[in-house]
Each structure stands twice: as structure tokens, then as C-alpha cells.
């Protein structure tokens, strides 16, 4: 009787042990409360936001961290600006319109040249 009981006990333990064990292992694998995720630099279009979304007591990163974040943000913006080959300011103009204003400028230049020539002739022509 006792060996049978022992056998049944062992079988029951063997059946349940892995799960208990894995749970235990998993529980033992679970680290201590996760550290709050660091603040994230999020890029939305052309704007950068600093997201601080960790709940709990450690929600205030402290002034040193803030300063470090701001410095990193500035450096990233400058580095991005320097690396980027896209002109930050541009004019959307068709070639047709560009040629129109160019021809107007050319006409102005010719008129100004004609006026200057007339003045010179007035001075030296007498």
C-alpha cells in the first residue's frame, strides 16, 4: 500500500512538477520590478517631443537627466540638419513662372541700360 501510495505521489508530482517548476522558474526568472523606460525622443513630422510616460514613483527623471535630454535633442537636430541634403527653405515655382520673372528682369535690365546710356550721351554729347 505504502509503495503504491508513494508511486502515485511521485507520479502526481512528476505531472505537476514541470508546471510548478516552470512557474517557479518563470517566477524566479522574472526580474525585479522593471526599471522605468527611459524618456523617448519622438519625432512627429518636423517636431521632436520628449515623452515621459512611466508611472510610479520614479516619474521625475531629475534636472540632470532633463539637461542631458535637451542636449541630445539639440545635437540630434543639428546633426540631422547638417546631414540632410534637403534645403530647409525652398520655393515651389514652375519653370514657366521662373522664365516669366526672368524675362521681366531682363526687360528691366535693358531699360536701365538704355536709361544709363541716355544719361551718358547727354553728358558727353554736348
Amino acid at each position, binding site marked *: 500500500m505504502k509503495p503504491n501510495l508513494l508511486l502515485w505521489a511521485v507520479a502526481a508530482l512528476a505531472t505537476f512538477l514541470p508546471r510548478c517548476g516552470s512557474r517557479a522558474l518563470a517566477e524566479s526568472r522574472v526580474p525585479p520590478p522593471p526599471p522605468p523606460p527611459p524618456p523617448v525622443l519622438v519625432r512627429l513630422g518636423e517636431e521632436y517631443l520628449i515623452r515621459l510616460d512611466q508611472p510610479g514613483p520614479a516619474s521625475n527623471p531629475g534636472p540632470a537627466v532633463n539637461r542631458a535630454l535637451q542636449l541630445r535633442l539639440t545635437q540630434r537636430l543639428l546633426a540631422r540638419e547638417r546631414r540632410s541634403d534637403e*534645403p530647409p527653405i525652398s520655393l515651389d515655382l514652375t519653370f514657366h513662372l521662373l522664365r516669366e520673372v526672368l524675362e521681366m528682369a531682363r526687360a528691366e*535690365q535693358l531699360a536701365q541700360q538704355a536709361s544709363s546710356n541716355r544719361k551718358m550721351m547727354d*553728358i558727353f554729347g554736348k
Partner: protein
Amino acid sequence: MRSDAARLRIKGGELAARPYSRLLGSGAMSGTFRAHVGFLFLCLTSLRGQGRYLDVQENEITPEGLLSLLNSELKRELPDDVVYRRPLRCLDMISVEGQFTFSADRPQLNCAAFFIGEPTDVISVEYNAVDIDCRGGDFVKVFDGWVMKGEKFPSSQDHQLPLFERYVDYCDSGSVRRTIHASQNVAMIFFRLHQPGSGFTITVRKLRNPFPCNIISQTPEGSFTMVIPQQHKNCSFSIIYPVEIQIGELSLGHINDFKRSLPGCAGSGDFVELLGGNGVDTSKMYPVADLCYSFNGPAQMKIGCDNTVVRMVSSGKFINRVTFQYRLLNRQELQKLKGNSVEDFCFIE
């Protein structure tokens, strides 16, 4: 230093350049002595190229007039009544020297003016009076080149400065840097003014460039000779029209026996390429032809693109020179090109 005798400034009358014999025979001893000294100064200033600063009043040579020849700094600027002036528009193109004033009668948030000169000119922009609210979001920025639809000329490959240095913001550096010199014959100014009544004045000048490198043509027709004198750089001549290009002479300093291990002219450090495209950035245009052998005699090509560029790549070992002419394609020629071409981008023959 041009000696421009034709640009004598004269107040109240006739030319003062009398023949020497008449000067000798006139007036008392002191008058003759003055005339001799005056003639001596005239010769010296003419040889120095400063005859244009001669200031004569009523045909009299006064001590002040003589001394003024020695102090040409006084007359370095043109008199106020000779400077060309006009208002600047929100969208504008300027090809003359002068003073231009923009005054906002209402918020003007997206304005730009293009500057262009002759191929041998370099544009210079000077801030004379700026009344804007930088903290309120106003800005005035001069760009070294042209920017259109996100593309820039000259391209980043062909310009010495990185992109962010090509924008000079008045709000950042205007108090220190009041005069900005472009690197080529084109420049631009972008400005945004929120408050009615704010504005600025700029003076545009054109300085001489003996070896022009990056050029935009003011006209759809013309001719040009580009020389790169033993400098390692790439230079582009851009024509913002569909044109027929005729290359009259190409002189590349290297002997015509470089190894052609790669297709086209890639094996040569000195060559000329013809580009076509629909933007102003030469690095985004399509190569139409490569020329890496010196030759005489016209070679022509019709390029039906919005922008046609002759670009010279130079290793710096040789003096390279290319001479070409260009003329506008008429509508018939454009239609024919479009009909014949299977390509999608521009129409080339």
C-alpha cells in the same frame, strides 16, 4: 582696375582735359604752375585707373580738386542720385545692381527674390536697413545659389560650402555679417514678415569673376567658353530652356589615350557631360552625352528638357576649356522631339 576716362564726373560743364599746350599758354605763373601740377596728377590718376574720380568745377583746377585725386576713397561709392532704386516684390527677380526695399503692408509669409547676373558676375547682397521682428517669427535669409522645389543649384557636389552654411540668416548673423558674397552669378533671398510696416532694404552688387564656375544663363540663346585652370572642381553651365547645344571646341589637357576600361568617360578625370532634366539640381539630372576627347568642329544636340546643363569635370591636372553655343528650340522642334522619342523624361535628339 579699369581706367575709364569716359566716366569722368563733371559738375557744371565741359570736359577739363585741355590740351597741354593750351594749359602752358594760359594765365599767370601760379596758374600755369597749377595747371602743370594738375596735368601731372591727371596723368598719374589715369595710369592708376582712377580718372573717374576727377572732380572739376567750372573748368577750374582747385587745390581741393587736386587733393581729391589723392584721396579716392571719398568717391568710392556712386552718388545717391545714380543708384538704381525700386521696391522689392514678394516674388521677384533682379538682374540689375541697385537698392531694393521691401515694405510689408500686410503679413507676407512666403516671399522670395532671385538674383541673377552675367556669367562673369558674382552677386553680392548688403543689408542696409532691416526692421523685422526675429523673435516674432520674421526672417530674412540669403541663399548662395537658387533653390526651387527642394532642389538647389549648384548641387551639393559642386559647391564648396555645406548646405546649412549656404543659408545666411539675418536673425542669426546679420549684425555681424552685413554683406554676403555668393559663389556664382545667382543667389536668392527668402523672407517672412508678420507685421505690417516692417521691412528691409538691401543693396545688390555684381562683382567680377575671372573664372566663373557655376552659371545659370539669363537668356535662352548665347555662347560661352568655360575654362577650368588646373583646379580640381566641377563646373556647370545651366540653361533653363529646351535648347540646341552646339559644342565648337573642346580642349581637355590630357592626351587622348586614357584607358577606356569603363564605359563612357568614367575612366577619365577630365570630361564634359551634357545633362538634361526638369529640375535645377545637376546631380539629379540625366546624362545625355559624355565628351572625353578634345576636338574642334561643331557637335550639336537638341535637348527638349526644362533645364539643359553643360558640366565640366576637372581633375586639376590640366587646363580644360569648352566653347559652346545654344539656341532656343521652337515649338515645332519640340513637338518633333516629343514624337520621336521613346523616353519618358525629356526629349533628346
